[in-house]
């Protein structure tokens, strides 16, 4: 884990009418680490993730990417700077095979004249997709069947592999294990580790404390729109996390600079 943060949010404030969703929230993720972002419902997790992935803009506060101040006017702008998000709905096209989902909107065209005429190179997309899946240890029943025929865990894996394929810096994962069985959950957690080992910063948003403790390197806790704790996953226990989330015990915020 490198010392300088890859993506950093400082003093983010976001107000919706009378609701102060984020009240000076801070957040940090490093390259090559899995950072879990946890908090009770209404703590501001979703708002923070939306802001960090370009879907929403803060009223106040700053975002630093590689130490440079950035603003994301749209998800596309965030993607262009290397930040991808996998939402719970996965955003896959169920009728298309995994390879074409991996290259959705970024199709590989045939070389030469055919490519300039807009002909797609499905074989190349399948090859590249197979490489990406192999790199991340994702096993699919068939590379050609439509995504709709895959299991929930495999669909999740395709969505994560796609995010990892196009993100050069940070991948946000929103509840990636929410609807999965035990075996599938393990596969997805393994995949998340693989994504980290590619050198990306992974932000895991989850309600499931045991999954968080199993896979995360570091945990940041949000409560009432502020970061109330950050700890190494080694030091964390379910009790400590729950206490921090619910305000039972607040860990003093380390000074940041």
């Amino acid at each position, binding site marked *: 884990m490198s010392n300088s943060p890859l993506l950093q949010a400082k003093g983010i404030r976001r107000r919706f009418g009378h609701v102060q969703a984020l009240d000076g929230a801070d957040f940090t993720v490093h390259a090559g680490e899995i950072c879990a972002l946890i908090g009770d419902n209404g703590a501001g997790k979703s708002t923070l993730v939306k802001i960090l992935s370009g879907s929403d803009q803060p009223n106040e506060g700053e975002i630093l990417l590689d130490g440079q101040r950035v603003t994301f006017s749209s998800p596309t702008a965030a*993607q262009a700077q290397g930040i991808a998000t996998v939402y719970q709905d996965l955003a896959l*096209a*169920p009728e298309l095979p995994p390879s074409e989902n991996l290259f959705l909107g970024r199709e590989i065209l045939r070389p030469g004249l055919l490519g300039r005429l807009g*002909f797609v190179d499905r074989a190349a997309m399948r090859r590249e997709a197979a490489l990406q899946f*192999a790199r991340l240890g994702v096993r699919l029943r068939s*590379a050609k069947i439509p995504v709709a025929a895959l299991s929930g865990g495999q669909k999740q894996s395709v969505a994560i592999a796609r995010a990892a394929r196009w993100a050069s810096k940070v991948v946000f994962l929103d509840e990636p294990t929410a609807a999965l069985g035990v075996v599938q959950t393990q596969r997805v957690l393994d995949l998340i580790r693989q994504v980290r080992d590619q050198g990306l910063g992974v932000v895991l948003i989850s309600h499931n404390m045991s999954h968080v403790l199993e896979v995360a390197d570091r945990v940041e806790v949000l409560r009432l729109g502020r970061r109330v704790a950050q700890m190494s996953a080694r030091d964390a226990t379910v009790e400590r996390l729950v206490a921090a989330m619910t305000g039972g015990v607040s860990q003093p915020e380390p000074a940041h600079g």
Partner: protein
Amino acid sequence: MDDLTSRPVPDALAPPDERTSLRERWSGWIGGGWIFALLILLVLVFSLLRPAQFASPYNLSMLAINAAIFLVLSLGQTFVIVAGGIDLSVGSVLVFSSILSAQVMLALSGAPADTYGTTNAGWGVILIGAVTALASGAAWGAVNGLLVTFARIPPLIVTLGTLGMALGAAQILTNGLDVRALPDLLVNVIGGGSIAHIPVLVLIAVIAAVLAAILLHLTRFGLRTFAVGSNTEASRRAGIPVRGQIIKVYALSGLSAGLGAIMSTARFSTTTIGGHAMDNLTVISAVVLGGTSLFGGIGSIAGTVVGVLIPIVLLNGFVILGIPPFWQTVTMGAVLILAVWIDQLKRRARDRG
């Protein structure tokens, strides 16, 4: 990245054996295959029962001519339905485009406006008339697409509205009368002519079908049409310009109605204001029969070709066999329901994994 290629690729990702891939490809292209088998079966049965009449070159070429205009309309409709939309306006857009282009050709031919019969306008005038029909069709299609994407009105309503508007506008242009004077060359060379014993109308439809198949199955435009129909929101988030794609797809359907307009005036030597009221249902049935899913994301041009041919072969066979042609309507309704039911069953089976 270098060490990755040396890692073993999981079995499931190794190239599947050719047999499976060929079968998968076929089933993808002909929409499951059973409907293709049904067409072959119908042709075989009618050919065996009445070889002299059904399988005669004259009858087969009449079948093909009957199918040609519907096929052209169905090509554009396939794109629209694959993209998750529907276009009810095709018949009216065809009528409007044929009226407009016939009026343009009549005006340019120098013949008096009340000419009855054919004019001696040359190929230049016909070309201008054809471009007029194609442009007017594409323009109506673009209007459909703009209303669907920017006004966010459901396509069923938008195209029901333009169905009325295009037909009414056509009647306003001519006071409700058909334009009955068309260039002689258009009627005789394109409408009634043939090249190497193949009717020109059929050649046009075949070329259009091949181009549509290439566009839908081999290009990025086609792939994005499938993507938008499969999951619009996912396509938008993946950076696909979804609105532009949908507008182009409706414009393509309008363009095919414009091409159908030229073919229709060439074939019948008149515009046919009253003759296209049922075109949309015929065309949508054909597309759905051919395995294109009304929910979007699934479909093929080859399936559409089969879907267009089945009702025409069925009607022709019934007439030749002396079965009252009314039975064709009943049979087609049943086959259509069966086709959609089978599509649903397959979809449910697949979604269960």
